[in-house]
């Protein structure tokens, strides 16, 4: 592997890893803030208990999202310095704004939420978590502005004197059509993740609580275990509702996104299906394919007629351009231009990667939404799943597995988006291989890749263990807060 391959692998590894934690942060911050607000409004113990309980899980996750985010900010310059020089005039701005407008907000107000309970007035305390959530949304907006430019560059011109792309219209950058559909799609997918975490943990705890006191659901007269069951059942339902509603909205926003993608990056849509020959209408979409995806050999696939046309154009009879036609046109436009920045041998992404990541994204997302539907149905009107029997263990395992479905759905979505952009770094402007740092030898890239991979691997184990023990410990009772005016009172929260 040369420095280009290594830098690409490193980017893939650290970015996919970082984005395991980001959607949890976005989604869960909103739900924790919501429970915290419910506590302020109604002073029911269970709201504060749920806010603290899911807050603990949130913090374990946030810590890893934060530290892996620092790597992201640095690695454009470290591994992709020629890219940084070429687009810095445009791409640097949203990154700087993200740090200034969002990272400060998130980190400062999270400190206030964690350490400020009992020190800040209740309403203000709840508001700090909303500030964190707003910070996560701003962060998503600006980083997606940067990414959308790479998918579909707007608001710029190429300056032949300086040899770089330069910003001409900041507003156009912020309202890039790709950005306007990617932002809701990404944020909604993150709400699915937050919902699924609360749902899965809620169901698992509910079964535990019910083992202690089966089939008693009256929270006012029951024992501690039954009121716990009431609380966790509510958590499971809140999580399931969020997952389901967000899931439906993800599907709608994804559909709109597909049409815009077909307009601005037709190769990505063709590669999502592995459609080699252009279709004049009624292009089918395959649910799965056995065999090669190189367009040459015979294969077995299960297809839905007209679905690809529908996804790409909104009509089952819409024409869809195929890989071969697009490849020929890119070769004529870019290959023949003599510009080394846009020269490539093929202009085609790695089809098995785009094909399968696209399907897996949709598949695991739908499965998560379906799971949410089952949870809502099973818990309707005060019902709960039985805590004993063979079914119960299926429930337990499903509860633990379900948060991972939308998390991986997010991963597959980004793998599709980024792999489907290849060989471009910035579509039509710069190929990936021309963006790496010329002064960094391959062994250094390899060193950092090995270091990050090993470190991240260990940290994943540490994080999972901490989350599991937090879930096993369950929600703690609401403690009395120390007197706010007493300087010598014990700290309400301490490391």
């Amino acid at each position, binding site marked *: 592997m040369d420095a280009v391959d290594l830098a690409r692998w490193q980017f893939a590894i650290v970015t996919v890893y970082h984005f395991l934690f980001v959607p949890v942060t976005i989604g869960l911050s909103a739900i924790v803030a919501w429970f915290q607000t419910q506590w302020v409004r109604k002073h029911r113990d269970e709201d504060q208990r749920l806010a603290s309980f899911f807050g603990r899980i949130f913090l*374990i996750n946030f*810590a890893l999202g*934060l*530290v*892996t985010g*620092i790597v992201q*900010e*640095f690695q*454009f*310059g*470290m591994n992709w*310095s*020629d890219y*940084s*020089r070429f687009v*810095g*005039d*445009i*791409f*640097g*701005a949203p*990154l*700087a*704004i*993200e*740090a*200034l*407008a969002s*990272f*400060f*907000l998130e*980190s*400062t*107000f*999270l*400190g*206030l939420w*964690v350490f*400020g309970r009992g*020190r800040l007035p209740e309403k203000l305390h709840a508001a700090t978590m909303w500030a964190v959530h707003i910070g996560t949304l701003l962060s998503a907006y600006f980083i997606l502005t940067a990414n959308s430019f790479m998918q579909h560059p707007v608001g710029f011109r190429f300056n032949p004197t300086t040899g770089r792309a*330069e*910003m001409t219209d*900041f507003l156009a950058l912020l309202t890039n059509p790709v950005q306007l559909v990617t932002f809701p799609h990404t944020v909604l997918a993150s709400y699915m993740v937050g919902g699924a975490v609360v749902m899965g943990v809620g169901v698992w705890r509910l079964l535990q609580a019910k083992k202690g006191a089966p089939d008693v659901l009256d929270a006012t007269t029951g024992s501690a275990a039954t009121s716990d069951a009431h609380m966790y059942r509510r958590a499971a339902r809140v999580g399931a509702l969020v997952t389901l509603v967000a899931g439906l909205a993800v599907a709608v926003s994804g559909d709109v996104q597909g049409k815009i993608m077909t307009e601005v990056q037709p190769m990505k849509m063709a590669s999502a299906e592995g459609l080699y020959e252009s279709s004049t209408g009624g292009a089918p979409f395959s649910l799965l394919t056995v065999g090669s995806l190189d367009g040459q050999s015979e294969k077995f696939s299960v297809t839905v007629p007209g679905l690809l046309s529908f996804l790409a154009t909104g009509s089952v009879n819409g024409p869809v351009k195929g890989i071969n036609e697009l490849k020929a046109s890119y070769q004529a436009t870019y290959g023949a231009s003599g510009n080394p920045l846009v020269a490539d041998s093929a202009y085609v992404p790695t089809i098995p990667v785009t094909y399968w990541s696209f399907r897996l994204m949709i598949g695991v997302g739908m499965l998560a939404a379906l799971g949410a539907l089952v949870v809502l149905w099973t818990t309707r009107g005060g019902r709960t799943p039985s805590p004993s029997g063979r079914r119960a263990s299926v429930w337990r395992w499903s509860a633990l597995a379900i948060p991972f479905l939308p998390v991986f759905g997010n991963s597959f979505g980004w793998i599709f988006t980024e792999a489907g952009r290849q060989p471009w770094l910035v579509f039509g402007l710069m190929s990936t291989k021309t963006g790496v*740092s*010329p*002064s*960094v030898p391959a062994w*250094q890239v390899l*060193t*950092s890749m090995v*270091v990050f991979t090993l470190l991240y691997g260990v940290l994943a184990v*540490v994080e999972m263990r*901490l989350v599991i*023990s937090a879930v096993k410990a369950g929600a703690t009772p609401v403690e009395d807060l120390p007197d706010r005016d007493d*300087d*010598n009172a*014990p*700290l309400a929260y*301490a*490391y």
Partner: protein
Amino acid sequence: MELTTVWFILIAVLWTGYLTLEGFDFGVGMLLPVLGRGTDTADTERRHRLLLNTIGPVWDGNEVWVLTAGGATFAAFPNWYATLFSGFYLPLLLILVALIVRNLGFEYRHKRDDLSWKRRWDAAIIVGSALPALLWGVALTNIVHGVPIDASREYTGNLFTLLNPVGLLGGLTFVAVFLTHGALFVALKTDGPIRAEARAIATRTGVVAAVLALALLGTLGAERGGALSWVASGVAALALIGGLVANLRAREGWAFIGTFVAIAGTVAAFFLLLFPDVMPSSLDPAWSLTVTNASSTAYTLRVMTIVAAIFTPLVVAYQSWSYWVFRRRITVAQIPA
């Protein structure tokens, strides 16, 4: 004023924010084994927790200053960002790893009631605070001192190029100054025996810091100094010495302001030494990166100036407020079980 100059100053401000704030939490991290040492295991644990809780609510916000400095450099001076980050590859890798384990140490240390778990994260916090303190000093000093940059704006040295005597002097100075700054922060934020111990430590590390800082600012000043940079260096030196005197008189607030101003003055001196270069080339001055040849377009700088004018005062306001919320001194007696 030229927009490139405005952004040069803004980036100096961001580094000032970073080093004055994270400087003390690096110091507190490095002082864990010293100020955290108690009479027995239980006492040691209480002291460790006290120290970590002095910076608990604020360290994360402090660290964002460096992310913003990095992002702002990318936006305003892409060539500076590209040359610096690709050139200083291995030190930055070490800094990243150090910050990762340190930050997780803060967040994960208290998650398990297990002494060996806590000791491991303590080590992560100590090393993760000392290494970036040292390496930021080495890196920033080398930027001012000049590093080999060729005609195509690429760094041609390696890790050992940066570990020259002046660079190492810079690294050690940062460590000593941050130790002092951190000790004074502990003296300001705690009460009980640890408060007086922190002052005593600050006096000892402060003398070393003063000697190193004078040597560093003198060396760099002799290389490239102008009237303004000498003034800034003078302010830094006087503030540091003033802070140490205040500390001897147990005036902790003034002492902390002293090290705070000393760090700010040092950053100001560094940037004044640089201007109008941002990364001078030691090979040929014609190959140096300057505020002009490294900068973004006037349009981008205008956009970013508006954004910075809106958000920077906001950030300063709410971050200051969070310091106000957590202004009380804390004692070991207040650490919950």
